[in-house]
């Protein structure tokens, strides 16, 4: 329930609703969309990426001298968990065709395609299979299916949303494969939202010029992810799943080809080696690094592990200076601060409003622009609503959706959102939600081409861990599509590669070299990576954990 002091502002939202309903019905934009200059201006002044200390130069590695997000640069300039000398790489504990690091959407899609094309794989995953941001996507997946749409319009939307920095061949792959992915998933048993005649239900997302958001109510990721996981589990002879066993370093060979990885059993604290002729990094993003102190929509294991292990092995990163903040993270109640409120809410007609109940931005600008406008409204124009704990937010008017789409629409299309709020006595069919940008997505990542290849032979990357597809800003619904398109492609091209790949003598020399580089650059740090899990232990408890530095390597 909202505290009493918010009532006057909530009243204003109710009062302006009829007028805004008429505006929406008119078919014209409810607020003028921003021009190129206006977008540029609001981003420069209010997007967190543009704060003076948001980026810094990285001093070592393949991107040396480049400005990266500060927290990312800190993570990369760190020590390895392992000492290379203690591993006997002539006797690997596991051998396989393809090592897939990460058991989310991209990893599972890659394993399924590789299996169908005749390659065996091991999926190494830090938590359980499917514990990934893929599971949490709510609103949908873009794909240009309707008569009035085309893959090239999708291309234009995606590249404009990314500020024209995206790698063209990747956007081409993304948008051209879209319709095929919808079909592939349906053939695996994904239940898409459909109309009576079987045609796919489509909605708008931020920055889309056509309605092309395909959904499974607001459990889109959960439905897709569980389908992929079930399919993976139906092939135990071809796909081995190792849960709670993250890869903590890649293994190379003396020809500088990627040759597998070192596994760490989180529970028994043992290390194992995997020899593989190709390796696919599908480790997802980094929301749990809490960049600039932001709350995050991301799952527990999203700590950017793939970035650092690939970087030590010499893989180049792209667009790692850009962070995506989802405009509508929840800010009230406190217990769900940072939680994702799907963009599908705005796709269905939900509007962001300030404390006076007024529209202040077109509801569906690309995410970075929309987020910056929210921050401007709260911090600069002082039109935000303060929560009891001092957070600021703007209203996201959901009751309007019921007026536009008919009563019962929210319960049918947004069961997860309804459930999330009714627990706290807020009925989103009757009252708006309070929102503020939340750390959501790693726009950049390890640079790939349309075959998911990196500059390191034998190393492939797919999904959020990769860089180039989305430029410096991803549109809604393009990440679900991304992990499917590029997960499939990674599985395909890695399988083709392993047919002729020959490995030399295995080596972990790149770890030793990286340590030397740290030393040469005079970098002093106590940080050991990959991070693996964030810590939410209170400070006073940490102080009493006197032996944490050697008791349990997680701490």
């Amino acid at each position, binding site marked *: *329930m909202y*505290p009493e002091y918010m009532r006057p502002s909530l009243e204003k939202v109710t009062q302006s609703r009829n007028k805004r309903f008429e505006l929406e019905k008119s078919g014209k934009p409810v607020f003028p969309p921003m021009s190129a200059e206006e977008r540029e201006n609001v981003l420069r002044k209010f997007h967190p990426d543009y704060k003076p200390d948001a980026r810094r130069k990285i001093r070592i590695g393949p991107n040396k001298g480049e400005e990266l997000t500060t927290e990312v640069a800190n993570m990369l300039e760190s020590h390895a968990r392992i000492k290379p000398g203690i591993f006997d790489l002539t006797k690997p504990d596991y051998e396989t065709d393809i090592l897939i690091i990460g058991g989310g959407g991209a990893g599972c899609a890659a394993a399924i395609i590789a299996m169908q094309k005749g390659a065996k794989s091991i999926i190494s995953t830090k*938590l*359980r299979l499917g*514990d990934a941001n893929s*599971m*949490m996507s709510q609103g949908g997946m873009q794909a240009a*299916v309707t008569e009035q*749409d*085309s893959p*090239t319009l999708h*291309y*234009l939307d995606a*590249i*404009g949303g990314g500020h024209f920095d995206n790698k063209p061949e990747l956007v*081409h792959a993304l948008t*051209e494969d879209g*319709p*095929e992915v919808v*079909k592939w998933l349906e053939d695996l*048993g*994904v*239940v898409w939202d*459909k109309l009576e*005649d*079987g045609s*796919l239900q489509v909605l*708008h997302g931020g920055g889309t*010029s*056509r*309605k092309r958001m395909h959904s*499974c*109510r607001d*459990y889109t990721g959960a*439905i897709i992810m*569980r*389908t992929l996981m*079930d399919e993976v*589990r*139906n*092939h*135990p002879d071809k796909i081995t799943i190792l849960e709670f066993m993250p890869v903590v370093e890649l293994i190379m060979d003396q020809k500088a080809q990627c040759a597998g990885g070192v596994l760490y059993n989180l529970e028994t604290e043992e290390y194992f080696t995997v020899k593989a002729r190709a390796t696919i990094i599908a480790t997802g993003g980094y929301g749990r690094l809490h960049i600039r102190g932001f709350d995050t929509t991301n*799952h*527990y294991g999203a700590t950017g592990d793939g970035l650092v292990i690939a970087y030590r092995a010499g893989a180049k990163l792209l667009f790692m200076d850009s962070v995506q903040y989802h405009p509508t993270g929840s800010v009230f109640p*406190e*217990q*769900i601060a940072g*939680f994702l409120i799907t963009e599908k809410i705005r796709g269905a007609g939900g509007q962001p409003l300030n404390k006076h109940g007024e529209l202040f931005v077109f509801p569906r600008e690309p995410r970075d622009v929309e987020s910056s406008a929210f921050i401007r409204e709260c911090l600069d124009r002082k039109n935000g609503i303060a929560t*009891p*704990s001092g957070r600021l937010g703007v209203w996201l008017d959901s009751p309007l959706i019921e007026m536009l789409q008919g009563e019962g629409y929210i319960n049918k299309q947004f*069961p*997860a959102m309804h*459930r*999330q709020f009714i*627990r*706290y006595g807020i009925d989103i069919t009757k009252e708006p939600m309070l929102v503020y940008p939340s750390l959501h997505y790693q726009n950049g990542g390890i640079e790939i081409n349309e075959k998911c290849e990196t500059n390191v032979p034998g190393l492939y990357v797919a999904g959020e861990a990769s860089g180039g597809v989305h430029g410096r800003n991803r549109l809604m619904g393009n990440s679900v599509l991304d992990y499917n398109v590029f997960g499939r492609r990674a599985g395909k091209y890695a399988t083709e590669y392993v047919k002729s790949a020959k490995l030399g003598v295995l080596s972990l020399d790149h770890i030793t070299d990286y340590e030397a580089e740290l030393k040469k650059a005079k970098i002093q740090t106590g940080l050991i990576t990959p991070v693996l*899990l964030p*810590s939410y*232990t209170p400070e006073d408890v940490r102080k009493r954990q006197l032996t944490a530095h050697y008791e349990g390597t*997680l701490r």
Partner: protein
Amino acid sequence: MATQTTAKKKPVKQTEAKAAKKDTQKEMVTVFIMGKAHEVPADATIMGAIEYAGYQIKRGAGCREGFCGACATVYRMPGDYKIYTGLACTTIVEDGMWLSQLPAIPSQKPVYDINKLDPNVATFQRLYPEVFRCVSCNTCTKACPQDLEVMDYINAAMRGDIEAVMDLSFDCLSCGLCAIRCPAEIVQYNVGLLARRLYGKYLAKESKQLKKRIQEVKEHKFDKEFNELMKMKKEELKKKYYERDTE
């Protein structure tokens, strides 16, 4: 059944009252994490309380937003014989709560080839024969943290009504609390998953538009336009982007 459904958890109002007190100052409660007493903030979720107490969770946390089902938790309240169930990430602690997370739930998942299944009751009889042991006790429904009508979808599976199973189990998180409470030893969440896959693959009406679009892509209908776009200079692309019309 309606009364049983509402009786399955502590009334929501109590947690609301607790959450509201945050407005004034930090109030603490005592919870027993696997039997050990800890003082934690009264407005904390169970997951927040476990971490506040100093535990580094390995098993028992996933998405932390109610989508993944990693944090199934059982608890009892003082002087109350009932076993309550919830997700640690979305359930608020209460004073005196005695709780334990379930790190994993053993479950049956037969291996099958989805391409060779028939969307009918015989498939359930073959893959999940235990479904037919259901005694309609409704314990699964009472245990569901999503408030799904679990027993109803198991009954629908017994009738071979795949659409109903799909619809009723759609929001299932596979947390496993139904399965661990079921006296007939059914793994309800896997039954739901099978039904959804059967529905999506065999029973959902085909989209003609989708079929046509895939054919168009195959016939290289968009190649020329793609080539032009991919070669365009940034300024040209920018102009085209800002001039595009919106549906």
